[in-house]
């Protein structure tokens, strides 16, 4: 479903060429070394740009972009669908299938995804796509050994690790409460003592992060891995003989040990040196502080590539961004209503076409309300283990997103950001409705499950098809997210269209790459965003020249945001060196161009090349001594500063960042290697029926 949604949403964007829009800039042959060397300020492009550069070494850049964009839909859709299927797998087959499809579709086809995609924030969306996986892995911390739970969590955090700062923040917000909030039934399970769920039920509970339930088994299961969330019962691992016997009898390995799913049991993977050792709740990560500790450790582990540079950067965050990036109303229902509908992005240019129309907005509102009702019904009925935590996360996220809307909230944010720049991401309020998007997606899945007649199916033991009209209606509901948000279709109505870089751009890139002498590239006009004519249709995009060259680029990272009254708010950038260049250049704020370039001054700043990435008058550089033209075209002019003027800095790759990156990559490889069994991807559907369940003989 996610793949289908991705193809429908991206459409032409998957074709040859590069999709450029706002923050989304992909270039041919990006330089990994340049990304790692970075710039002053917070490392916002790490590690997403580093991952793109690494992949571009083996794949064409436009293919890498298509894969990245498609991964958002595929990973996100699959994650939400899987989360639903794990809990609803006891229902009918068709009902669970349609419920999963509905959840997957709703999770990747909503205003949040559309607006962030149109804002070009693909890396953040990658982290968003991983949220259901992170929630599932966090819930499993309660039922598996700490090492296995940690490995599963690191694997689930892989999209967030690639996405970078915003992605990890979103993961912390969404799954943090899941780790902290005590699942309902946890205490009851402890108190019940001998009232243990049946093996299959317990396995499903473990997989879904659900509080243990169900009747006591006729005979005790062999495995002790899939016990309740904090059941104080010591159980032995299955012996090697039992495992062999189980496999020989055709029992799937995942049912013979932990029903770990993405977090396989250590015994099944053969990695657990403690196999055969009794386990206590504390050993299985059942205590909330154990879960919280593991969760925090996993977050820090995947954050090291950007966390260490950020902590040592000494950069500041401009509090004026609080007002500029606060959520705004993009529907007739005000800011609160817009956020409830998962819209409300600060940039009016990122709203999908036709989204705010009363008809479609009202339909969208109804769908949201129904989805929320479905979530409440489902979380009360099935009590998924992650339910309370996810509900808390959704409410908390909505409150954070509303902070910038009210005057006291803005004051609070300004104080926080002034006190510590690390609070800077709170400026972008709409970002934090992501947990609510997951809640709504799962709620819609529950609605579809109810719609397919799950009660009748459960009573009759049928496949859950219910009556055909119910199935037809359920299929219609599965596609409802698309129906009420048609503006995302086919590259958001052509807004996401690939373009090819002009020849002069590629020639400039090649010329700079051929020069091994050090020195930076100054990008003019002194403004971050462009509306390149060669992009086919007017589109605002971060100047691709800032990422085109295999050396440090100096560009104006100030962000200018237009206000409804026609004015502008300037959010100061973070690159200290860029501020120094700005003082020296003295550019005209209307044109972004200096009155005259001076080769000696430029060379003194360490500038070896000047890239003029817009069609402008050449009077500010024509005839300047010490500058030579390397490439000259309509949209790109590359000037070289004579060698005797250049005083380049010796910029290397900081060892701290490299170390952090290696630790993260190593942890991810370890977590994937640890999962090296067929348990990673299991059949999510139910078994053929209760009678078909197999248990390992004692």
């Amino acid at each position, binding site marked *: 479903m996610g793949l289908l949604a991705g193809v429908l949403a991206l459409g032409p964007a998957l074709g040859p060429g590069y999709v450029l829009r*706002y923050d989304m800039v992909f270039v041919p042959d990006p330089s990994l070394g340049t990304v790692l060397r970075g710039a002053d300020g917070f490392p916002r492009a790490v590690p997403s740009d580093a991952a793109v550069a690494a992949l571009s070494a083996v794949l064409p850049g436009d293919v890498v972009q298509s894969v990245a964009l498609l991964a958002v839909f595929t990973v996100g859709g699959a994650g939400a669908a899987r989360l639903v299927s794990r809990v609803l797998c006891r229902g009918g087959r*068709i009902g669970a299938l349609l419920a999963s499809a509905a959840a997957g579709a709703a999770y990747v086809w909503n205003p949040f995804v559309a607006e962030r995609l149109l*804002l070009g924030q693909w890396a953040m969306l990658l982290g968003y796509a991983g949220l259901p996986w992170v929630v599932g892995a966090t819930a499993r911390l309660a039922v598996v050994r700490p090492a296995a739970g940690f490995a599963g969590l690191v694997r689930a955090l892989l999209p967030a690790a690639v996405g970078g700062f915003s992605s990890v923040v979103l993961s912390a917000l969404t799954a943090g409460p899941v780790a902290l909030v005590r699942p309902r039934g946890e205490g009851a399970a402890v108190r019940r003592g001998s009232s243990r769920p049946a093996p299959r039920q317990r396995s499903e509970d473990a997989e879904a992060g659900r509080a243990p339930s169900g009747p006591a088994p006729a005979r005790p299961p062999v495995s002790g891995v899939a016990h309740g969330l904090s059941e104080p019962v010591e159980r032995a691992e299955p012996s090697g003989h039992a495992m062999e016997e189980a496999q020989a009898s055709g029992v799937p390995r995942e049912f013979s040990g932990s029903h770990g799913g993405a977090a396989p049991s250590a015994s099944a993977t053969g990695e657990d040196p403690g196999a055969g050792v009794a386990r206590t709740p504390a050993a299985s990560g059942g205590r909330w502080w154990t879960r919280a500790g593991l969760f925090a450790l996993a977050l820090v582990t995947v954050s090291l590539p950007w966390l260490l540079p950020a902590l040592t950067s000494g950069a500041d965050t401009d509090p004026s961004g609080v007002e*500029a990036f606060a959520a*705004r109303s993009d529907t007739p229902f005000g800011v609160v209503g817009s956020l409830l509908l998962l819209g409300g992005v*600060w*940039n*009016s*240019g*990122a709203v999908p*076409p*036709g*989204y705010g*129309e009363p*008809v*479609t907005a009202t*339909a969208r509102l109804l769908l949201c309300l129904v989805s929320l009702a479905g979530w409440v019904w489902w979380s009360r009925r099935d009590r998924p283990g992650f339910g309370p935590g996810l509900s808390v996360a959704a409410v908390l996220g909505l409150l954070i997103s509303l902070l910038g809307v009210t005057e006291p909230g803005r004051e609070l944010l300004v104080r926080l950001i002034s006190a510590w720049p690390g609070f800077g991401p709170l400026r972008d309020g709409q970002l934090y409705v992501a947990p609510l998007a997951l809640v709504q997606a799962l709620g819609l899945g529950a609605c579809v499950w109810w719609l397919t007649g799950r009660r009748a199916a459960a009573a009759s033991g049928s496949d859950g*098809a219910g009556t*055909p*009209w*119910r*199935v*037809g*209606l*359920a*299929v*219609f509901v*599965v*596609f*409802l997210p*698309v*129906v*009420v948000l*048609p*503006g995302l*279709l086919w590259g958001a*109505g052509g807004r996401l269209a690939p373009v090819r870089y002009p020849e002069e751009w590629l020639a400039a890139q090649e010329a700079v790459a051929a020069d091994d002498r050090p020195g930076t590239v100054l990008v003019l*006009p002194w*403004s*971050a*965003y*462009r*509306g390149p004519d060669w992009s086919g249709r*007017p*589109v*605002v995009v971060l100047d691709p020249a800032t990422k085109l060259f295999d050396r440090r680029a100096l560009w104006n990272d100030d*962000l*200018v*945001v*237009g*206000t*409804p009254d026609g004015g*502008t708010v300037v*959010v100061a950038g973070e690159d200290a060196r860029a501020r120094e260049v700005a003082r020296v250049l003295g550019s005209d704020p*209307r*044109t*972004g161009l200096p009155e005259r370039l001076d080769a000696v001054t430029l060379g003194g700043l360490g500038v070896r090349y000047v890239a003029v990435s*817009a069609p*402008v008058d050449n009077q500010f550089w024509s005839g300047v001594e010490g500058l030579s033209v390397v490439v000259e075209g309509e949209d790109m002019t590359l000037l070289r500063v004579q060698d005797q003027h250049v005083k380049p800095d010796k910029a290397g790759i900081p060892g701290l960042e490299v170390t952090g990156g290696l630790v993260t990559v190593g942890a991810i490889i370890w977590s994937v290697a640890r999962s090296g069994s067929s348990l990673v991807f299991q059949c999510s559907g139910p078994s053929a029926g209760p009678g078909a369940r197999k248990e390992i003989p004692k």
Partner: protein
Amino acid sequence: MIKVIAACVVGAALAGGATFVATSVATESTATAEPVNETLYNYGDR
């Protein structure tokens, strides 16, 4: 089973038709004004 498949097809067709109608509504009402031929561009406008 045939009835179920037919119901799925009908449901999907209905959704397709509704999407077409919604797209028409959205397209007719869309009046985007993306900036063109400016010297400098904002990061975006609220």
